[in-house]
């Protein structure tokens, strides 16, 4: 009977843990997106002032609980020199959020190049990818169709995986919740990358 109760307790309270990488060029808004996510999904979290966010070197870690799933975000530095470190995290991750700066038309080609490397990596085979067209609060930003056109070369290289392009503004929070809920749905149903299971203790 003790074993049954113990097992029942674990079943009711365990959280499936998924690691989500947040990638993209520097200044695309990755850390702002992470900060906004923590604010929106964690009731007691007091976010930092978004204006205080500076260039990330290293790894910002954030945790978000959505239903029975726990997302552990790894927000990696996006400077060109740091992109060679991204692949060190691929094997352990369950999802990728790729953030694009919709206002930076000049660097769109550069962003596409980096994105192509991400989706063609063997270590990320089958991993869901959420593409966020960020900074949609800016009047003069590129629209989703514009961005899809710029990234059209990559369509054939995405391979067999869940993929969604979502308009968003990390600054205002628009599109953030929808994106994360989509990601949760995808990582949960992806049988090829089972979650890390953590008992709540």
């Amino acid at each position, binding site marked *: 009977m003790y074993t049954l109760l113990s097992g029942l307790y674990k079943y009711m309270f365990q959280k499936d843990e998924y690691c989500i990488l947040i990638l993209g060029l520097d200044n695309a808004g990755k850390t702002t997106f992470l900060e906004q996510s923590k604010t929106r999904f964690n009731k007691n979290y007091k976010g930092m*002032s978004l204006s*205080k966010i500076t260039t990330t*070197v*290293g*790894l*910002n870690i954030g945790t978000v609980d959505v239903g029975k799933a726990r997302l552990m975000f790894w927000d990696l530095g996006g*400077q060109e*020199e*740091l992109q060679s*470190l991204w692949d060190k995290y691929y094997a352990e991750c369950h999802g990728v959020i790729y953030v694009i700066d919709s206002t930076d038309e000049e660097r769109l080609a550069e962003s596409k190049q980096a994105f192509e490397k991400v989706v063609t990596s063997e270590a990320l085979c089958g991993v869901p990818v959420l593409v966020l067209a960020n900074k949609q609060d800016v009047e003069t930003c590129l629209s989703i169709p514009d961005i899809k056109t710029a990234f059209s070369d990559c369509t054939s290289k995405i391979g067999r995986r869940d993929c969604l392009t979502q308009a968003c503004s990390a600054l205002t929070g628009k599109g953030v919740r929808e994106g994360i809920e989509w990601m949760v749905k995808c990582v949960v149903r992806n049988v090829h990358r089972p979650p890390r299971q953590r008992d709540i203790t």
Partner: protein
Amino acid sequence: MIEVVAELSRGPVFLAGEALECVVTVTNPLPPTATSASSEALAWASAQIHCQFHASESRVALPPPDSSQPDVQPDSQTVFLPHRGERGQCILSTPPKILFCDLRLDPGESKSYSYSEVLPIEGPPSFRGQSVKYVYKLTIGCQRVNSPITLLRVPLRVLVLTGLQDVRFPQDEAVAPSSPFLEEDEGGKKDSWLAELAGERLMAATSCRSLHLYNISDGRGKVGTFGIFKSVYRLGEDVVGTLNLGEGTVACLQFSVSLQTEERVQPEYQRRRGAGGVPSVSHVTHARHQESCLHTTRTSFSLPIPLSSTPGFCTAIVSLKWRLHFEFVTSREPGLVLLPPVEQPEPTTWTGPEQVPVDTFSWDLPIKVLPTSPTLASYAAPGPSTSTITI
């Protein structure tokens, strides 16, 4: 184990607007023949210059920091925050520059990287005052894969010469015979051009010599005349003044003159207190001259401005001003009483009066102190230009 050494090529003192150059050398110190030798790997290294601001809570009333919105992960060991663990708040930082990424070092191998960054011209100077401190550092962050970030700190001293922002200001040809703008054509020499311009600007400001005379009087008459040739100085210079007491009608027994700085918290940031509160103004004496001068006709003094002190400056929170602070002790009685009588019918022993009623008064003369060349200022504190850490 990996050894990281950071070396400033020209000493730790810089002028705002100048480029700071630092060589970072990463070494796997095991000899190649060691049995336990293996190659070492570093994920990345990055460098950033930052300025920490710290205010005394008993003197300065800062608006409460947004406690509802703290800095992102202030104790995070996975993201490079140059001010992690530092006192005060970071008020200025340059963008991080990546020195290397994915470095592998074989036993005995060394690699060197060059960091160069212009010190922001809009920042405050380095300053360690009673109410406020501004502390500059170059911080280098290194991380092994799957390890916390290690921080290597290099202390800096930053001097600020105001007016360098408007570098297009026309130059006085008499003081600068060679035009600084000629060198601007050689693109690569922009930094030395700035240092040269600063040097010329300093020379122009501090070379102007004309005698300024001040009458020194107390309530009862003239004490003497004070003469000084300059009102603008550079760090390291001597303040020279001349006191003429021979023509005074009031006898001066003793005087002192102190070279002082006055640190004052701006009114909107002063801590309001009742009686006995900590003052929002504080003074530091850098040099002092004291002299008994009852029978002195003329005297002079020379007070050195320490190279390690801070030139005058003003920020939104605090201002620092320089001055000569005089204190005079004057006799309340006519001067003749203090002298032996001229004619005596028979020899006798004369003694000075045992008690003399005196007055004291003080007088402050503001002066201006500007920076000097950073190379010269480096001599003041031959601190380490090299910092080392082991990962």
